[in-house]
């Protein structure tokens, strides 16, 4: 099968959906003439013109709101945040408007809108540019949250997000944009809310998403060597979460490790751990383990950043705790 980069997969998804549906348009900082801050939208201005690929001023709260307003009356915007850190400037629009308009109007308003961009850290970008925003959005009923780890998932899930009738926060990763993987030539979508068993196994379950899937991949060869048969699950959509997939796996393996890039307190992993203890308590042979970032705003210094992030060593240590070794 052909291999394309994560950013190309995202671009294909947007281009195909824009070609398919006149109501879909793209808006954000540097998405047009500059070809995208991370070149995700390269060529799209040339393909679709200024009406449908809209360069904005730096005004996240404003253009997120414009997107929501236009969706209230039937357009289907894709709003790009240069990074999800800047979505916090538009937090009010996402939380107070996007997530609530449907309920407040008694179901009169449908809001088919995608907010997308890279989340999490990259390399020494400092405290204001290295944060995981998914827990903020997962907390909020009315929003869906998607975080693909591979080019194939990125394309299939983004197409579904654009076709979805709800506001979707679609979180990519700067360090994955260049990552290549198999993507079918032919048209496909991947449904939101469906996890993937990336590797079947029987000794323990590892749940991880986005960049952390790639961290887990680094650990697997050594685990195999040690005769540990891990089942790896990528939820891909964090809200709605595929609870059944995670529970089925834990009922089989009896041990659960969650690896996430975000902070520990109130993180998505905490919710997963609650779910599992509530619904699979009798199956558990060990307390649920989590590997997260340290509970600290991201420092700049290389050694501190490394110490703050999840690592191969931290995953091994957690696996050992799970297995009582």
């Amino acid at each position, binding site marked *: 099968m052909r291999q394309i980069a994560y950013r190309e997969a995202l671009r294909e998804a947007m281009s195909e959906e824009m070609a398919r549906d006149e109501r879909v348009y793209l808006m954000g*900082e*540097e998405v047009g*003439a*500059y070809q995208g*801050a991370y070149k995700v939208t390269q060529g799209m201005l040339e393909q679709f013109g200024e009406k449908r690929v809209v*360069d*904005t*001023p*730096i*005004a996240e*709260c*404003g253009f997120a709101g414009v997107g929501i307003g236009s969706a209230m009356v039937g357009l289907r915007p894709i709003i790009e945040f240069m990074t999800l*850190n*800047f979505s*916090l*400037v538009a937090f009010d629009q996402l939380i107070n408007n996007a997530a609530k308009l449907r309920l407040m109007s008694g179901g009169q308003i449908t809001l088919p809108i995608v907010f997308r961009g890279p989340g999490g850290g990259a*390399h*020494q*970008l*400092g*405290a*204001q*540019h290295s944060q995981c925003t998914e827990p903020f959005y997962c907390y909020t009923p009315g929003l869906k949250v998607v975080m693909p780890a591979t080019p194939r998932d990125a394309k299939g899930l983004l197409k579904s997000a654009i076709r979805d009738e709800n506001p979707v926060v679609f979180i990519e990763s700067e360090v994955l944009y260049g990552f290549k993987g198999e993507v079918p030539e032919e048209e496909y979508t991947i449904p939101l809310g469906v996890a993937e068993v990336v590797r079947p196994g029987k000794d323990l379950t590892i749940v991880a998403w986005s960049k952390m899937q790639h961290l887990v991949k680094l650990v697997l060869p050594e685990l195999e060597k040690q005769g540990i048969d891990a089942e790896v699950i990528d939820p891909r959509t964090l809200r709605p979460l595929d609870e059944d997939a995670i529970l089925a796996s834990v009922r089989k393996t009896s041990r659960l490790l969650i690896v996430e890039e975000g902070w520990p307190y109130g993180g998505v992993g905490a919710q997963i751990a609650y779910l599992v203890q509530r619904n699979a308590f009798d199956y558990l042979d060990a307390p649920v383990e989590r590997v997260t970032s*340290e*509970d*600290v*705003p991201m*420092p*700049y*210094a*290389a*050694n*501190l950043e490394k*110490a*703050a992030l999840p690592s191969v060593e931290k995953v091994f240590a957690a696996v050992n705790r799970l297995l009582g070794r």
Partner: protein
Amino acid sequence: MDRGLLLEIYRDMLLIRRFEEVAHRCYTEGLISGFLHLYTGQEGVAVGAISAARPTDYIVATYREHGHYLARTRDPKSAMAELFGRASGCSKGRGGSMHFFDLARRFMGGHAIVGGHVPLAAGVAFASKYRAEPDVTLCFFGDGTANMGAFHEGLCLASLWKLPVVFICENNLYAMGTPLYKTLAVEDVSTRALGYPMARETINGDDALEVRESVGRALRRAREEGLPTLVEAKTYRFRGHSISDPAKYRSKEELEFWKKRDPILTLAERIYTLGMADEAQLKEMELEVRREIDEAVEFARNSPLPDEKTLHDYVYAGSGEETAGGGT
């Protein structure tokens, strides 16, 4: 014109220019990481403005703040060490290029969310007024910032509450790859001042002396009448937005046009014309500045990394060394 002052302004600008060039080199050598937004070309604004201020006046700046930091502190060592992520850096290696802080010298940070620091500057000025202190706050930001909600709210409140703050927009014509005319519905950023309202000036930011005079007027207005001002300094960055931006969106002719207005070269010409120094004297100064930057690199290189055991320091008050809270 005072000779000492003129040469001091020239030297401060040169220090920034050479610092940025060396920072650029260190980045390509892998000694610095993350984002690096160079100030090259805009030196006239920071140096002109800060030379007009008192050392007790506060400065709040963006991620493109190396120049402002050096203009205030003349301390390339603590700046370079911060870029290297060392414990001896001005933010103890926690901040990096975008987050220089020096509370003692009233440098209240580089801030990396566009517009987010504008209300902070109004808040620092609020505190000065609250405590009946004579200090004024200088707030620097770019042209692209003038569309942010936080910018408008910050200026609204500063005007409403008559806060002693000088807002200095460094209009370098671009916000990343976006030319100003595409995002601003008005010709001059300073016309924005009309609606709040507050006093405004649009000036040539490549003339440090013009900046000094204009900001001087604004500082007096703030100190004596307690009123804010919006100063728009037109300038140009010679490099890309950050080190990873080749700036292909600008024509060679445009860059050449602005390089003729290079604030350092034009000031050197002025110094010669006024007979305040000759080429040999400026050359000597140049060597001195280069030595100073080399020493800063050595200092940074030889400084220890932050201790990993201190990872959790500085998250809450009481963790890590105590620093004086609330001013001074």
